[in-house]
């Protein structure tokens, strides 16, 4: 790697050692499934290029996605927004308010036309002209059209922005729709989840910054590195599923013993996400819903989370369990049969009877001998 002052400078600004900064970038590269070379490239991209402008639009949402990002530790949110990206508009995080905020957004969009990244959390209301979510006197639809026009990439973060989420589930009074139904002429990257794992979002952003490319997406436009496999496939409780050990009630023996939650309505078998692999909150030790005994409700899967009843059984995408499992401990051997019991009983009876008779006869014989002895004496 060429000696590059910019790395030292950015490391200094972050209050990190150069080594720690490189380690962080390599870590992000690993999350993306890239080589350690990519980590170095990423470090240089972060250090060298102008920080990309990000405009974060919040529609009908609960701020859970932002909260989730706040909990990220590598990088922390402040590292992200102060050193890696230029977060030019965010209702939750920006200092400016009112007209100032609007001015900042417009300036950023104008200055970075065609280069900035739009992140949307929350679903977009369409009923009655979309009047149910308005900022600065304009509906979210209008804001979205305006922002998408000059955007290099659009990321829909969270289940609401990706599939409609809570606001779009029946009876859907606001006519809420996902971002991808408003913006049809540009690809929308979906990072679903309620909330999504912050690292799935961060890794996608880092690839955008570094290579200017979008990670490989599946047919629902989710990055494959994060949503390529079923939760079921990497679940630590999977062996219980295969062996037929299910919790059937909250708090029952199986639930307490950490058995499979499939029969409680766990949607892991039909939901694609990397939750069991990277978990939540950076604390390890099974800190994710299934890991702590709460069935997965399928938040990252279109038509599952917020749509299917919580306790309805999942439609297993891979192999459904058989109705009957072979017993874990098959019955081996023959118990007592009537014939054997009769024979043992007969022997016991013979011993008892024989003993009784012998005792009596011995007594009689002894008495007789005594009498003879006394008589002869």
């Amino acid at each position, binding site marked *: 790697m060429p000696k590059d002052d910019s790395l030292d400078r950015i490391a200094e600004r972050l209050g990190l050692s150069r080594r720690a900064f490189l380690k962080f970038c390599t870590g992000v590269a690993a999350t993306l499934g890239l080589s350690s070379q990519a980590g170095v490239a990423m470090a240089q991209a972060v250090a060298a290029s102008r920080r990309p402008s990000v405009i974060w639009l919040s529609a009908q949402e609960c701020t859970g996605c932002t909260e989730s990002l706040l909990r990220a530790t590598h990088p922390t949110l402040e590292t992200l927004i102060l050193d890696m990206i230029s977060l030019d508009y965010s209702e939750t995080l920006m200092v400016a308010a009112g007209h100032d905020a609007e001015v900042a957004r417009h300036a950023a969009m104008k200055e970075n036309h065609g280069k900035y990244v739009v992140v949307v959390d929350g679903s977009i209301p369409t009923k009655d002209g979309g009047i149910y979510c308005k900022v600065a006197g304009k509906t979210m639809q209008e804001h979205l059209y305006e922002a998408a026009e000059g955007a290099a990439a659009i990321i829909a973060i969270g289940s609401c922005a990706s599939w409609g989420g809570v606001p779009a589930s029946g009876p859907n009074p606001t006519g809420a729709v996902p971002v991808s139904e408003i913006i049809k002429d540009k690809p929308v990257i979906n990072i679903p989840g309620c909330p999504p794992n912050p690292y799935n979002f961060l890794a996608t952003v880092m690839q955008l910054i570094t290579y200017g490319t979008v990670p490989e997406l599946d047919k629902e436009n989710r990055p494959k590195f994060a949503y390529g496999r079923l939760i079921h496939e990497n679940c630590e409780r999977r062996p219980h599923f295969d062996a037929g050990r299910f919790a059937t009630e909250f708090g029952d023996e199986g639930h307490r013993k950490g058995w499979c939650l499939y029969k409680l309505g766990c949607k892991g078998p039909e939901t694609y996400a990397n939750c069991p692999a990277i978990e939540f909150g950076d604390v390890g030790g099974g800190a994710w819903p299934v890991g702590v005994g709460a069935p997965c409700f399928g938040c990252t899967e279109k038509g599952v989370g917020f749509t299917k009843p919580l306790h309805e059984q999942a439609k297993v995408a891979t192999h459904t369990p058989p109705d009957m499992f072979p017993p874990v401990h098959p019955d081996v051997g023959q118990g007592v*049969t009537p014939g054997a019991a009769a*024979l043992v009983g007969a022997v016991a009876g013979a011993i008892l009877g024989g003993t009784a008779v012998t005792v009596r006869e011995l007594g009689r014989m002894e008495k007789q001998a005594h009498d003879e002895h006394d008589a002869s004496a």
Partner: protein
Amino acid sequence: MSEYRILKRPLLTPVTLFFGVLAVIGLILLAKRFIFGLGSVTNLNDGYPWGIWVVYDIMIGTAFACGGYALALTVYIFNRGQYHPLVRPALLASLFGYGLGGLSAVIDMGRYWNAWQIINPWQQNFNAVMLEVALCITAYVTILIIEFLPAVLERFKLETWRRRLDRVLFIFIAIGVVLPTMHQSSLGSLLILFGQKVHPLWQAVEFLPLLALVSAVTMGFAIVIFEASLVSLKLTREPETHLFAGLGRIARWLLVAFLAFRFIDLTRRDAWGYAFDGSFEAFMFWAETALFILPVILLFRESRPVHSPGMGRGPILFLSGVCVLLAGALYRINGVLVGFNPGPGFHYFPSVEELLVTLGVIAMEVVGYLLVIKLFPVLPKPHPEIDHGKSAATSQAPAAQA
């Protein structure tokens, strides 16, 4: 002049015939076992590789056969010559018990054609308790044959050979006392190796060899009382109570010792809770313990004056003997089968055919015993005095005279 006689009775009697039929059934089933394999006759499986054949024919059978050992200990080690007349019948019972026990081990072996490897030095595993038991029992059967030889030599009046044998017999008698001490305790040690599979009420670990040995010696005394009572009642019609009454006094202290060791062990392992958990194992434990305690009570009562009301001495001794034998048998059945849990899913109860083989083996012992006492001088000569424990043969019977 021998103190033994040949019983002058017809060889074929209804009793011999009855047990003969049982023995023949056993032999037919054994033929089936050797032609079609263990599975065709037994209920053994991978969880219960040891069934009634090992528990009864070997463990209980050889403990029942400890009469010779118990008497050899009493007569030759503790120098109680008055019991010498009982030695030969006890030796005969031991010979049958151990001989058929050894045979049963081969019957129970899946690949019995490899049994000879036991004496093949480069196939021997010197860490195996099984090897110790196998070699020891084989050696002891040989010793028992030599110890019994005087009866055969007497029968054929080979006096020269008899005298030659007498000069070296003490060596065999000494070995004959050492060997059962070794393998009877080792039969207990086998249970140590079962580890957690044995229910805590019976998994006494370091105490197992001691418990096995003490119970076996006690059962040895009991079988002498049992056998002598039956012989005197059914065959000679002459009470022999005066001969074996003293054995009951030894047995009762052995029983107390056994119970003490048993209870100390349960206490030190905190296992008493299992005796009160209402399980089948707890029930069997109390059945077994009751059978051990009952003869203690009976035998301490027995030492009261003869003419006191209630049961006489003979019946009390006989009843105690039966209790001890059943208690020892139950202790072994409980440890190896009832309290044995090889893991979920496994069941075992002996099949009818398996039980018939065991009954056949017992029948063979009875028939063999009845035939031998009618052909060789085995039973003690009748004594003119009745019910005078120590009068008989106090001055005679040094070791060499066996």
